[in-house]
């Protein structure tokens, strides 16, 4: 007796729960409207845009994974794009507008009704899920031409493509002339940047000038004379860069005042020591042995590169 009473109570509670859930479910999706263009007069290749407005109770939001994906729906219908516009919550009601773009490739022989299938959109409030059913939409498609065109009516047959219109070349000509003018200008700028002729005498690039002069002095078989000329050329570059005579003891101060040459300090030191030996120790051969001509030209090139990097 007692057991049957308990069973009856449990059954009553379960029924109440199911009922509540059903009530909730029926109350949650408030409306689903499909707005469509005319339902007739479509031809092969036409694009059909459907607009679905869904309204749900506030805490529920659309589960984006449940939306249809752009794809081939069936052999004659493509879904080209899907866009969801969240229109926000008003009076405890959240509304969405889904824009769907279909394209039909059906080739009917006579006017024929076709249906774009419906789909289900899932809503969720974090725990519960409910479904909004979007109904199918039917429309009428028509053929483009007769099934069997009559003889002697060539215009009823497939027509030739329209001949391509001649494209205007004026813009291309303008662009070509512009590029033709810009190229020498850019090349001139590049020559200035690298201090090539005729910018090789540029005052702002003493080391670039020195590199050229050193290379010239050290061309071919190097004798003491050419070596000394190379040293002097580089000395003049240091003087010009510092704005005054730079001596061996000033090397450190020079590097400190022009940090772009900081990496080259050991080479600068070697250069000054070699120059001192060559000019004041009257020992050019010894200087050439300690700081060979190719080291001199390398130093000149690296100084020119460092100078270029700085300006």
């Amino acid at each position, binding site marked *: 007796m007692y057991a049957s009473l308990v069973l009856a109570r449990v059954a009553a509670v379960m029924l109440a729960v199911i009922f509540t859930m059903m009530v909730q479910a029926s109350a949650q999706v408030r409306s689903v409207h499909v707005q469509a263009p005319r339902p007739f007069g479509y031809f092969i290749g036409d694009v059909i845009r459907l607009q679905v407005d869904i309204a749900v109770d506030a805490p529920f939001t659309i589960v984006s994974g449940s939306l249809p994906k752009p794809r081939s729906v069936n052999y004659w219908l493509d879904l080209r794009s899907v866009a969801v516009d969240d229109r926000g919550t008003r009076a405890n009601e959240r509304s969405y507008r889904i824009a769907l773009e279909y394209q039909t490739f059906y080739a009917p022989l006579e006017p024929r009704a076709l249906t774009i299938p419906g789909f289900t959109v899932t809503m969720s409030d974090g725990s519960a899920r409910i479904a909004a059913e979007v109904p199918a939409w039917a429309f009428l498609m028509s053929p483009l031409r007769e099934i069997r065109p009559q003889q002697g009516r060539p215009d009823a047959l497939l027509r030739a493509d329209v001949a391509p219109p001649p494209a205007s070349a004026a813009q291309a000509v303008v662009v070509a002339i512009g590029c033709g003018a810009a190229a020498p200008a850019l090349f001139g700028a590049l020559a200035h940047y690298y201090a090539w002729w005729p910018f090789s005498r540029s005052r702002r690039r003493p080391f670039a000038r020195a590199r050229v002069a050193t290379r010239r002095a050290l061309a071919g078989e190097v004798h003491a004379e050419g070596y000394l000329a190379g*040293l*002097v050329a580089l*000395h*003049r570059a240091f*003087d010009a860069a510092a*704005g*005054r*005579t730079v*001596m*061996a*003891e000033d090397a450190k101060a020079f590097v400190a005042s022009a940090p772009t040459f900081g990496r080259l300090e050991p080479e600068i030191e070697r250069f000054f020591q070699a*120059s*001192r030996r060559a*000019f*004041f*120790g*009257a020992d050019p051969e010894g200087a050439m042995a300690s700081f060979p001509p190719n080291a001199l030209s390398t130093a000149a090139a690296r100084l020119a590169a460092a100078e270029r990097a700085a300006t």
Partner: protein
Amino acid sequence: MLLTRDADTTLADWQQRARALEHEVSKAVIGQDRVIRLVTIAVFARGHVLLEGDVGVGKTTLLRAVARAIGGLFERIEGTIDLMPTDLIYHAHLGEDGKPRVEPGPLIRHGGDLSIFFFNEINRARPQVHSLLLRLMAEGSVTAFGREYRFPHLQVFADRNRVEREETFELPAAARDRFFMEIEVPAPVNPEIRRQLAFDPRFHDIDALISRVRGEIVDHSALATVARAIQVGVRASEVLQTYITSLWAAVRTPQEFGIEIDGVDMERLVLGGASPRGVSFLVRAARVRAWLEGRDMVVPEDLREVFFEVMAHRIFLDPVYELRRDRIVRELCKAAIDAVAVP
């Protein structure tokens, strides 16, 4: 060969002593390393030195310390307006018996062995004294008691303060030209050194300070020989000789080297000066500096280091610019060194 090696080892040995001299003097005078280096150069070039600077920067202390470190006999005299040349040579007094006596004065009291003659406040002495000094410095001799006294080892140190102009006599150009160097002694700028000078009791008693300097580090009678050896042993290459002549020309005709100084008409600035004697002094000083740096060749840095002290007082400016002389000459020397390319 043996002779050369001997000379080399002797020079190396003397270099050590020169360093020791600098070190000893720097114990008494701190924060004046450059001045001490220049005075050392003058000692080893056998040149007379004029120090100038503000009152109380340590000119006299420095010279006393150097004199002590060099050793040899040393005499000192203060320049005053009533000092006459005879006061240097003769000492006139009344003897114990009441009779007037004339005995040798401070200059010749020790005969020819005098090593350092130290003239304080030289610009307070009269031109007559200056002219005596001129002969002493140029020829190393004076005439007294009807005979000539020679001073083969003599070096004259003089100082003057440049603040006071009253009751002073400007040194004639010829006397200034005899000075090997005119060294300006600046007041120390380093705050740590200033603090030490003010608070360290060591610097309060000058006599005690000087007595701490080790005496007789170098043999003053050998200095002349060493100086000659340095001048022979240190090489000045052809490139350097060209450099010196260019430098000389740049000081005499700065406008040709594109040198410009603010508010100065370069065409009329330099009247003359930078005498051949000055240039030869310059080379001498540069050789000694090279030797002190341990080199056997003169490099332009040596010349630059001593250029102002050796040359500045030999440059004569248009009288219009004399009042601004200090700044102008300094800028001129610097501009000349900056303008002349080397090598």
